[in-house]
């Protein structure tokens, strides 16, 4: 959903918990068929490296075979020894087996755990690349969500959920089902009737109860998610507005913000916990019934001779280690809604990206230098029913011109830049460079444009690596020159680590103005013929703003510059000023001419520079 509202909307949009699709409405149940039916993120990987996968399942099964085997042979060993055979060699085989199973269980478990983690991490590794590739295919998705980086990082969280899905649900469930098969067959050797009875009891534990669990968890998961989100939103809003709460002295009400959502989540969790407790109790009781059944069965079938009776303890005792194997399946199913949700998000992303892939345009090369940029009768809206942001806009820019774009917030200034880049396609009209449509110049794009948005992104690495992104071949000298151009060289030189100073997460080490300048240094280094800047001075104080704009003009000398701004300061160096209003160009011309001829411009300009003539 395109966010066509303005930049400074409710602050919680950025600080809240991210996705806004939860809302307060009645939680809906997951449509499993829909999510799992058309999937790009799960099935393809399950088919990957089948040999290793089979080995993992085999090792997992073997772990429990050993656990049961240990109790089986120990029980047998003790029962047989109690008959006091005259020779120790009578129990030699059970002794050896007891030791073997005793060592085998931890060893196989270790091997299974390491193999399965390795397999999953390999899958996740590929999933990461897939996520990256999918995202990078859709630039418009990215530009829409530039400001809400949370959406992107939530997708990364979804990958982590998938990782757990394999480890916590898929693997234990498959192993439990294999053990179900093994146990049924092993008991079948003694008695087909007992085997059938056990099979039915196991079906309760492995099929019926997990499905009930799933259905119970589904409703609760949706409710908790929606409520949690509400709580996040409300609390974040109230924290951002704390000053207003303080001066109205409404501490009690403030403390209660989101409390009802919190209480609902707590209640829901309590219900879930209660359900889990009694569910596990029920499963345990089924095992108690099985144990009693095995006792009775042993009495009925294994008391033909002393030799057979020695197996009774063995059979009954081997049941208990299996509880660990089977009891986890119900919980594994209960977590499916969470994973399905994540999978749904990822699949949704894939589908959106696929749907938005526009028909490929034959790409051309731009042999001659950029001469002109033209918008011809461009009309654009984010979709049917959305406000028309640009309505029949035409604009001609000569190479080397400096053009300032102004207008109220949300009026499509940024959209013009995105249309020029080719990230968005106009509903009608053409955007041309040297007479070539920009859609056909996408391969040339990195060579043509340098673009700086409102909150430029700095990677959590060194200053040098961040700037070198503009030109991977740049020397340290080149980087210093770029830093000189943006007036940051002295500041960087003053740092103990110089160019190798880490900028920290999101560039946290530097102030807003410094971050802008570092990002600008990339563009200086890149040396593209067209430079696009989106409100480069927003949030800066006038002195810094003044310095930054002067520096930008100097650094982009000889290049074409298009900059979106909300202030008129520094405008005197523009060749052309374009005011947008209601999707149309309201004023256009050189600043000096506008100042002379246009009273509105004069008024705004006087306001902006702080006309003190009247004082």
């Amino acid at each position: 959903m395109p966010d066509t509202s303005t930049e400074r909307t409710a602050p919680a949009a950025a600080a809240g918990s991210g996705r806004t699709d939860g809302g307060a409405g009645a939680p809906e149940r997951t449509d499993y068929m829909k999510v799992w039916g058309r999937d790009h993120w799960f099935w393809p990987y399950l088919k990957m490296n089948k040999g290793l996968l089979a080995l993992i399942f085999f090792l997992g099964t073997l772990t429990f075979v050993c656990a049961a085997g240990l109790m089986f042979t120990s029980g047998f060993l003790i029962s047989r020894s109690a008959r006091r055979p005259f020779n120790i060699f009578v129990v030699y085989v059970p002794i050896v087996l007891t030791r073997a199973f005793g060592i085998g269980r931890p060893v196989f478990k270790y091997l299974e755990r390491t193999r399965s983690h390795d397999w999953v991490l390999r899958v996740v590794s590929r999933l990461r690349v897939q996520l990256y590739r999918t995202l990078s295919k859709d630039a418009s998705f990215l530009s829409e969500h530039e400001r809400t980086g949370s959406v992107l990082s939530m997708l990364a969280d979804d990958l982590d959920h998938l990782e757990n899905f394999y480890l916590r649900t898929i693997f234990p469930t498959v192993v439990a089902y294999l053990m179900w098969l093994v146990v049924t067959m092993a008991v079948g050797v003694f008695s087909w009737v007992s085997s059938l009875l056990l099979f039915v009891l196991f079906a309760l534990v492995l099929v019926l109860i997990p499905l009930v669990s799933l259905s119970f968890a589904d409703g609760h998961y949706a409710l908790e998610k929606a409520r949690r989100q509400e709580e996040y939103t409300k609390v974040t809003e109230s924290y951002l507005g704390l000053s207003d709460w303080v001066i109205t002295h409404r501490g009690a009400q403030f403390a209660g913000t989101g409390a009802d959502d919190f209480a609902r989540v707590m209640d829901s969790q309590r219900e879930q916990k209660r359900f889990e407790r009694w569910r596990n109790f029920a499963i345990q009781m089924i095992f108690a019934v099985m144990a009693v059944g095995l006792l009775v069965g042993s009495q009925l079938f294994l008391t033909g001779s002393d030799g057979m009776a020695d197996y009774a303890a063995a059979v009954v005792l081997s049941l208990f280690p299996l509880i660990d194997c089977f009891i986890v399946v119900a919980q594994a199913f209960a977590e499916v809604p969470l994973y399905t949700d994540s999978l749904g998000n990822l699949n949704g992303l894939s589908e959106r990206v696929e749907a938005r892939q526009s028909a490929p345009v034959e790409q051309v090369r731009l042999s001659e230098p950029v001469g002109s940029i033209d918008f011809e009768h461009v009309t654009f809206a984010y979709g049917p029913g959305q406000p028309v942001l640009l309505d029949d806009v035409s604009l001609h820019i000569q190479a080397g011109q400096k053009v300032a774009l102004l207008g109220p917030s949300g009026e499509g200034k940024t959209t013009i830049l995105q249309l020029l880049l080719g990230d968005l396609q106009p509903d009608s009209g053409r955007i041309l460079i040297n007479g070539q449509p920009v859609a056909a110049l996408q391969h040339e794009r990195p060579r043509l444009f340098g673009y700086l948005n409102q909150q430029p992104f700095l990677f959590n690495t060194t200053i040098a690596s961040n700037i070198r992104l503009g030109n991977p071949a740049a020397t340290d000298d080149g980087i210093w020159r770029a830093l000189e151009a943006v007036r940051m060289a002295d500041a960087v030189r003053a740092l103990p680590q110089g160019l190798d100073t880490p900028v920290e997460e999101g560039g946290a080490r530097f102030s807003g103005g410094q971050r802008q300048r570092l990002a600008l240094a990339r563009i200086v280094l890149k040396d593209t013929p067209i430079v696009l800047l989106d409100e480069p001075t927003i949030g800066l104080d006038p002195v810094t703003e003044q310095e930054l704009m002067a520096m930008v003009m100097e650094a982009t000398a000889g290049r074409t510059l298009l900059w979106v701004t909300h202030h008129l300061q520094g405008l005197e160096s523009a060749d052309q000023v374009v005011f947008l209003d209601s999707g149309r160009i309201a004023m256009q011309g050189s600043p000096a001419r506008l100042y002379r001829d246009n009273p509105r411009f004069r008024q705004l300009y006087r306001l902006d520079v702080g006309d003190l003539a009247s004082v």
Partner: protein
Amino acid sequence: MIDTSLFRFAGIRRELLALAALSILQGAAICGQATGLTWALVQIWYRRGLPSLVLPAVAFFVAFTVRQLCEVAKQQLATTYADGVVRRLRPEVQAKVFRLGPAALNQRGTGSAVTMLIDGLDQVKTYIQTVLPKMMDMTFIPLIALVVVWSQSPLSGIILLCMLPLLFFFLAILGLAARDRSNRQYAQFRKLNTRFVDTILGLPTLKMLGISDEYEDEIHSVSDRFRKRTMSVIRVALTSTFALDFFTTLAIAMMAVFLGNRLINGSVALFPSLLALILAPDYFLPIRQFGDDYHATLDGKNALQDMQALLKRPEPAQDDSLDWEGWGPDSRLTVSHLDYTYPTKPQADAVVQSSASSSRYSSKEPGPAEREADAESAGTVEPALTDLSFSFHGYGKIAVIGRSGAGKSTLVQLLAGFNAPSAGSIDLDGHRLEHFNAPAWQRHIAYIPQTPYIFSGSIADNIRFYAQDASDGDVEQAAGRAGLDDWLDSLPERLDTLIGEGHRGISGGQAQRIALARVLLDDSRGILLFDEPTAHLDIETEYDLKQTLLPIMEDHLVVFATHRLHWLSAADRIIMLDQGRIAAQGSPSELIGRGGPLDGLIEQMGGNQIAGYLD
């Protein structure tokens, strides 16, 4: 894994006693269950016929049921207790956040505080409900099992007892060493994860620079390193589990073989041997389980420590004794020699940062207010105020001007009572004050920051924030005076339109107007404090808003911090701050055009360049 602060919760003793009693009862039931089972198996071994099996089987079944019921009861107790703790903790934390005020919250960061409240409480809950029953189980169950085994077969008792120090040795030495190592690796592992998120967040930038394809390889190699790193973390953890597992299964195998030998010698009977074998797994179980959820409980422990550090922070003093009727035309406020120093950032926050570093990205992008605070603190050193003396008399507009970091916002926040001065005297209509954190004062002020508080709800609800029982007519009128009419007319539901997160987005100008309407609705607020009211707005919105603001400012005491020069001509008095000191104060005509410090600032800010255009 246990934190001593756990023992300071209300009712913890009773809770622990009840859990201990249940653990002891469960231990007894475990022994009873083992006895019943052994007894039954012995009957089968002697081939005594089905009736002889009834009593032991019933005994087993009853004891088994009691054991599971104990488990349910323990879980129930622990969950309910944890529930109660968290439900009591939430309002405490909220009340503390409220009393510490907006300045402290900004310093900590809104996002991190919200995370602490919502995710933190959840983690604390998991921590408490997991650790309490596990602790009790480990204390009592092995002991009871050991006593019973020993009484039946001292040799088996010795084997079990010998294994105990070995287990603790591995739990402690190997486990702790591994945890130390794994903690360090965990940190690196987090770093790599952050790196991936970082690259995803920076994708628009990479795309723009035309190097997104090259970064696909980077993602792959980061991911691969990530996998190896994770594997080494996991391997350490798995090795310690392996050691624990190995020694427990080995103990059981050893015991079975020893007992087998003794049985053949005839020096021990079947019943005690079998009982020892059956009890052995239950003897080890609580110890093995204890170390299981280390990382899950670690998060809870950190969150709990963080909350307790917050609750211990000293609160700003509040003056409830002030008896003052509000600002009138004859009111006078005199402030002399006021100093203010920023408190140093509390250390506790670092804990959260590290433990929540991955979740910080996921949903808690810093809000705009926070970003601003970041920029302020990163760009300058310790904005403090030194030796401020000024006096306000009656109604009037006071502009506080200066460069970023000169202390403008600090002064306004001081006047609002969010910060307390470290020295100086305040005289308000003859009342002596230490600071402005006095309900009687705050009842008469309105504080409007750059991004006013907008919460999700209707526009009318938002406007009613200061005066909650205002009539619809008054709200309508206030909205009109605040210049909201044009916008409201474009909304079908007018004042009932829902705004805020998840609803209609609003622009910065509209948010300011809503905040103004709020003030207009409550005429008891004669003092208006503005912190950069128009700095983030585009020039046209700023112009329109100024036209609305000017008449509202009449008949009020207005203090506005700004770096926009155009406000100067509208001010009755100007206070110019430079590095926390008053550089100049007086009426505009006294300060402008006299070659004083204000003229220097205006020059730097690029004011009064109109002359250039007229050439």
